């Protein structure tokens, strides 16, 4: 964690203070600036990347690494770029989102990896906030998914269908390959 030099004012909440030194946590932006200055151009992203590298060295398998970094496999993007227009039916292109989860190892590629050819969007706002009050429904749906091959979640707009579907996919699939907005 990056900490500020000065002691914080009363306004800074305790979660943003270091329990040992009492100093406040830096904003992400300021931390990024300082880090960049100190390392002559590195970004915090690269720092995160480095953590991934270490965990790869420790023997973590590829799916877990991909899930952690939230990157779909870069290798496939270029290889698949030429296939995208051929493989995707118009139906799917008109969907707001297309997500593919494969169980087990990354033995091939997800459709999404073909889709995520140019500008993959790994950081949908959907995932940046915590899921609240859906634990029970997730359990219920995971067991429903054992019994059927086509499960439809219905509900009014804004009730959280997409969000729940993504959470469910993450739960049953182990990890998401990634996804892409193709509105």
């Amino acid at each position, binding site marked *: 964690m990056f900490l500020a030099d000065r002691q914080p004012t009363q306004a800074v909440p305790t979660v943003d203070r270091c329990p040992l030194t009492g100093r406040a946590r830096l904003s992400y932006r300021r931390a990024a600036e300082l880090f960049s200055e100190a390392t002559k151009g590195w970004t915090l992203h690269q720092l995160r990347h480095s953590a991934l590298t270490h965990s790869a060295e420790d023997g973590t398998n590829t799916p877990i690494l991909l899930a952690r970094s939230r990157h779909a496999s870069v290798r496939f993007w270029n290889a698949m770029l030429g296939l995208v227009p051929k493989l995707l039916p118009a139906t799917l292109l008109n969907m707001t989102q297309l997500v593919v989860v494969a169980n087990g190892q990354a033995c091939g590629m997800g459709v999404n990896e073909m889709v995520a050819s140019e500008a993959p969007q790994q950081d949908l706002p959907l995932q940046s906030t915590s899921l609240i009050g859906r634990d029970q*429904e997730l359990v219920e749906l995971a067991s429903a998914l054992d019994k059927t091959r086509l*499960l439809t979640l*219905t509900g009014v707009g804004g009730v959280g269908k997409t969000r729940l579907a993504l959470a469910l996919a993450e739960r049953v699939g182990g990890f998401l390959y990634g996804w892409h907005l193709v509105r």
Partner: protein
Amino acid sequence: MVAQTVARSSRSRSRPAQIQSPLLVNFFRPRQILLILDNCEHLLASCATLSAALLRQCAHLQILTTSREPVGVAGELHLARPRRLQCQTDEPLAAAELRQYAAVELFVTRVQATLPHFATDRRECTNRSVRICARLDGIPLALELAAGRARALPLDIIADRLTTDSTC
């Protein structure tokens, strides 16, 4: 963006039907995959056709769809989930009870993300949050949007606007 890339491909525009199933079937058939089709209500008929074709030909494929209406394919299990989040409508809540109601918990968590000092132990804050959640019927998207307003507007004003102006 891929959408643009593909939109440029005149082939996919002019002959959508021909690009459909065979290639996807070949892709999905050997794989154990969960395919998610999101917001199917916009293209219900196409989604139904595609799902039916894929499920018939790909033994290990599972499809999860989200839609305002059932897709209408044989074998479909359709569940009215997620439900609206639970919210208390009449009795004022004590701070300790707050987290029992998912709608209130969602709202308060999101407000606290923008306003770290938002005090759930103050009765008026709690009551106003509960009022807002009740007005919004526990719809998460609406709650998120209302919570986003909390940075600029006091909660009682948000609550009042929700009460008096149905378009707000």
